[in-house]
């Protein structure tokens, strides 16, 4: 059985994510998952076995805080070194239109593997746009509420009490998205190719044409070539 689609360098490839985006993405993936597992030991009952992996509950708390600081640093790194990338990302999200709505509505069928015809997509498809809005928002809430919970004495007590449910709600929604997202960005046969975009930076040209025709046309199509010259 095939897991991730095979990486093919015999087929023409185009760049999808630059090094800063990729370092940030895998950086926050690892730190997010560390925070998640060390946080779940408190969120769920009967997680002693998981806490043991981190050297007990005190150890889990320490790992949670170290990972949290690194997560914050990765976000700062992204903002500092690829601010332009973030702006163009946000601009693409603002292009949310009819094609995205149809994509999201038809997506459940595609998700299960039924053949569907999707309207042309920009750099990020409807689902990725949704993910790009919801997950980072949740992560920002996690970071803000997290520091409030870490240093409650310097914040008003009312804010600390709001931070507790906020941290958990943001954790659940972010993790819900990440479960689907991690799967779609790797083992899903249709979109799995995007994994290489995030891992090596490039995706197959034919895949890009097929999945993100508007983006492909604008970035690598004839018009874009003409503009470059």
């Amino acid at each position, binding site marked *: *059985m095939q897991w991730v689609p095979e990486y093919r360098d015999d*087929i023409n490839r185009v760049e999808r994510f630059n090094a800063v985006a990729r370092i940030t993405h895998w950086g926050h993936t690892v730190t997010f998952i560390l925070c998640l597992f060390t946080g779940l030991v*408190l*969120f*769920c009952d009967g997680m002693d076995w998981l806490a043991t992996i981190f050297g007990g*509950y*005190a150890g889990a*708390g320490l790992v949670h805080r170290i990972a949290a600081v690194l997560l914050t640093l990765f976000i700062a790194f992204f903002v500092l070194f690829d601010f332009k990338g973030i702006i163009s990302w946000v601009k693409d999200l603002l292009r949310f239109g009819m094609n995205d709505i149809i994509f999201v509505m038809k997506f459940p069928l*595609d*998700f*299960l*593997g*039924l*053949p*569907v*015809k999707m309207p042309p997509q920009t750099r990020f498809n409807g689902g990725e746009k949704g993910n790009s809005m919801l997950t980072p928002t949740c992560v920002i809430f996690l970071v803000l509420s997290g520091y409030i*919970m870490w240093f*409650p*004495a310097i914040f008003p*007590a*009312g804010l*600390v*009490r*709001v931070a*507790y*449910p906020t941290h*958990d*709600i943001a954790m*659940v*929604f972010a*993790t*819900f*998205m990440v*479960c*689907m997202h991690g*799967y779609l960005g790797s*083992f*899903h*046969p*249709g979109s799995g*190719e995007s994994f290489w975009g995030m891992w090596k930076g490039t995706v*197959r040209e*034919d*895949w890009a*044409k*097929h*999945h993100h025709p508007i983006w492909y046309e604008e970035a690598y199509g004839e018009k874009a070539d003409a503009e470059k010259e």
Partner: protein
Amino acid sequence: MARKTNLYDVSKCIACRACQVACKDWNQLPAVIEPFKGNYQTHKDTNGDTYTIVKFIEHEDDPAADVQWNFLKYQCMHCFEPACMDVCPRKCIYINDWGAVLKDYDNCIGCQYCSYACPFHIPKYRKRQDIVTKCTLCYERVEEGLTPACVRTCPTDALQFGDRDELMQYAEERVKFLRVNGFPNATIYGKFELGGLNMLYVLTDSPDKFDLPVDPKVPGQIPFWQNWVQPYLGWLIPLALLGSATSFVTTRILANKHGEHGEGGHE
């Protein structure tokens, strides 16, 4: 076992703070010196090394009269339904068989949830040990047949310890007496508040004159968090995993049926 309660009768308190010192002494807590703030109260609030304080509350209700001073011994109320116990993720807070709310410090991770869930914000962080501490109702002493250190020390018997029902009767008599002797607003605190407190107060005036919440409530965010978010919302995560696993299987079955995806994706 019947509840054993601490009773504090403010009408007998002379604010000598012997209880505060006795508490430090028995629990071997280091002194915490706070700067002078212009009144006689030593500490603004309880802290990680100070389980009980005597508050000095000033009132100027009647401009003709002098400043009115209200004293209040302040510490953990040993609630019948402690919010601190509900939120503790390490389940290290428990109620013993005579009603003291206690902590098992071995399991405490210093997360401070209990501190902010408490309607009185009583438990406090002790940095040097990374734990959150509070009054223990001197349970070790009580189990040896003694009374709590503060009660033992109190020179005016403003503090009394014993069977809750007996002390409740006594408190009711005291309130009756005070009401006809110049304190018409005298009241008991701890009988009904928060479903009952294992610390009873005889107050000479309404609770707000003693810096106590008149109708104390666990802050709303805490039950929302504990009763809704924690037990139910988390199920979305296994749902997402299940969805992904389903897709993993069906995409591969359907791929066999419809033939492999064309080069680069669908069709």
